[in-house]
């Protein structure tokens, strides 16, 4: 595998250099650098959104999720992603209408405008900082443990993590969002091809789909139904995860920025539909990988299982392509998020543009270093770590939806309620407060309470005579 790995790695690095140089030539202003000229076609748009959305979380986390917890993982991600596609069509149109005619720089700035106070922007910044850094760390951690298991002794986990962060920072700082989008497109194509090839190989290994599930039934029948062997996929867990994942398109800045920079509404719709198709193919392909693992490597730890199914059991060229595809996936998802975090900081800055850009680039480097630290220190439960990130950002969903959809400026009570929601959720993560209340999951309870509260608040302010008083 090593020779193929270095050959394909060189090809990948060359394509990154070409993408960065091309993007640098096209960047004429700070807006081009941060917003890619706001003229993204549907194909490139789909590949960049897909690469941002489907990362090591999908290619490493989902097979492991299917292996450990069974077919409920389909409901967990595929049904949620289908609904996310619809949400992009619905929310994307509202967001684009809201930002048209405004100088859109990021959601944090938009929240400041909508609520009429900088506290709204600060709250959004704190929320995404707290919950996106772990998600970025998941990408870096996932690929680092995988590479360490596949090429033992070449670099330690922290060495792989540092190398990935170094590559990512270099080209995103040089080429801006356009370089990231080109890199995303390369990654999206690698990821799709490699996953489908491996999945087909495993189905062929079993002799067919029915035979594959028959083997799984003989091995552990609990994997074929919910809640799965560990009892994870309860209806409550799936509902809370569904809400958290659907709201990714509303709450996470690397997604919202891509909705805004699409060329027009038609491109946005086509992008969303193509994304749905992409999602179904990728998630379908992770099922045989997980089922193969459930039959052959049920008791192995995550890193060993992944190293066997994605590298050891593959022919060298496929194993090398997987490794490069995973590095590409980790890099493209993580840099999109880091860049989006920087963009959000920029949207809160006022004054000299050159100074703002300098501060933004420094912020991106700080975020990258923070993510690197978390990646080195975090555990290996990739999907569950990512889910915490989705749930954390999703708490800000009602706060953002109220700002974009409400005809009157929403009240500061929504900012306070959202801040409280984030605080309670954080406390539950650190087990300061219980994670269930009257047998209801706390994250689900927070989502529902905030949605109801935001609805009541905006309805009250809409009532005649209240808007002027408020």
């Amino acid at each position: 595998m090593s020779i193929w790995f270095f050959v394909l790695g060189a090809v990948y690095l060359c394509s990154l250099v070409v993408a960065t140089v091309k993007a640098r030539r096209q960047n004429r202003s700070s807006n081009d650098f941060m917003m890619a000229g706001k003229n993204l076609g549907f194909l490139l748009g789909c590949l960049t959104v897909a690469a941002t959305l489907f990362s090591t979380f999908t290619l490493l986390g989902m097979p492991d999720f299917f292996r450990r917890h069974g077919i409920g993982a389909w409901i967990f991600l595929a049904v949620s992603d289908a609904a996310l596609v619809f949400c992009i069509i619905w929310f994307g149109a509202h967001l684009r209408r809201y930002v048209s005619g405004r100088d859109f720089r990021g959601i944090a700035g938009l929240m400041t405008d909508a609520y009429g106070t900088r506290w709204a922007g600060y709250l959004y910044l704190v929320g995404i900082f707290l919950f996106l850094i772990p998600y970025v760390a998941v990408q870096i951690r996932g690929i680092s443990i995988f590479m360490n298991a596949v090429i033992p002794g070449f670099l330690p986990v922290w060495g792989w993590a540092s190398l990935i962060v170094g590559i990512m920072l270099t080209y995103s700082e040089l080429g801006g969002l356009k370089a990231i989008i080109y890199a995303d497109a390369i990654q999206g194509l690698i990821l799709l091809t490699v996953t489908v090839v491996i999945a087909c190989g495993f189905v062929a290994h079993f002799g067919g789909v029915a035979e594959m599930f028959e083997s799984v039934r003989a091995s552990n029948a609990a994997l074929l139904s919910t809640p799965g062997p560990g009892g994870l996929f309860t209806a409550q867990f799936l509902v809370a995860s569904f809400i958290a994942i659907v709201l990714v398109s509303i709450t996470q800045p690397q997604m919202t920025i891509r909705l805004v920079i699409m060329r027009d509404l038609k491109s946005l719709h086509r992008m969303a539909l193509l994304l749905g198709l992409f999602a179904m193919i990728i998630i379908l392909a992770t099922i045989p990988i997980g089922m193969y693992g459930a039959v052959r490597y049920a008791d192995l730890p995550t890193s060993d299982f992944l190293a066997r199914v994605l590298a050891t059991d593959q022919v060298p060229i496929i194993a090398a392509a997987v490794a490069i595809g995973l590095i590409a996936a980790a890099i493209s998802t993580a840099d999109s998020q880091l860049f989006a975090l920087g963009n959000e900081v920029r949207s809160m800055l006022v004054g000299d543009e050159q100074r703002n850009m300098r501060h933004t680039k420094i912020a991106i480097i700080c975020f990258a270093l923070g993510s690197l630290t978390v990646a080195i220190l975090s555990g290996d439960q990739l999907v569950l770590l990512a889910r915490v990130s989705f749930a954390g950002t999703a708490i800000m969903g009602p706060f953002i939806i109220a700002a974009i959809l409400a005809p009157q400026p929403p009240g500061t009570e929504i900012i306070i309620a959202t801040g409280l929601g984030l605080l309670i959720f954080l406390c539950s993560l650190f087990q300061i407060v219980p994670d269930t209340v009257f047998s209801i999951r706390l994250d689900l309870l927070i989502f529902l309470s905030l949605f109801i509260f935001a609805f009541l608040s905006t309805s009250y302010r809409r009532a005649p005579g209240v808007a002027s008083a408020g």
Partner: protein
Amino acid sequence: MKNRKNMLWRLCCAGVIGLSILCFTPLVIPAGQYQPLLLGLPRSLWAGMLIAFAILALAVAGTFVHPGMNDVNANQDKQP
């Protein structure tokens, strides 16, 4: 025409919400049951696939009747 499109768009939204709710009922995720199989697929998997593809089909339909796409011939965003 515009009202009809609005109504169809709302129907698509209602369909997506309805299917999403249905997905979390015992009809799709009965505890501990994997039968009946369909083409060898366990129950929750094939039912979940049907729901996911149905939601995507509604998304496709939604792009045709989306209020923002009224009279769109050019590449201009319209108010949804």
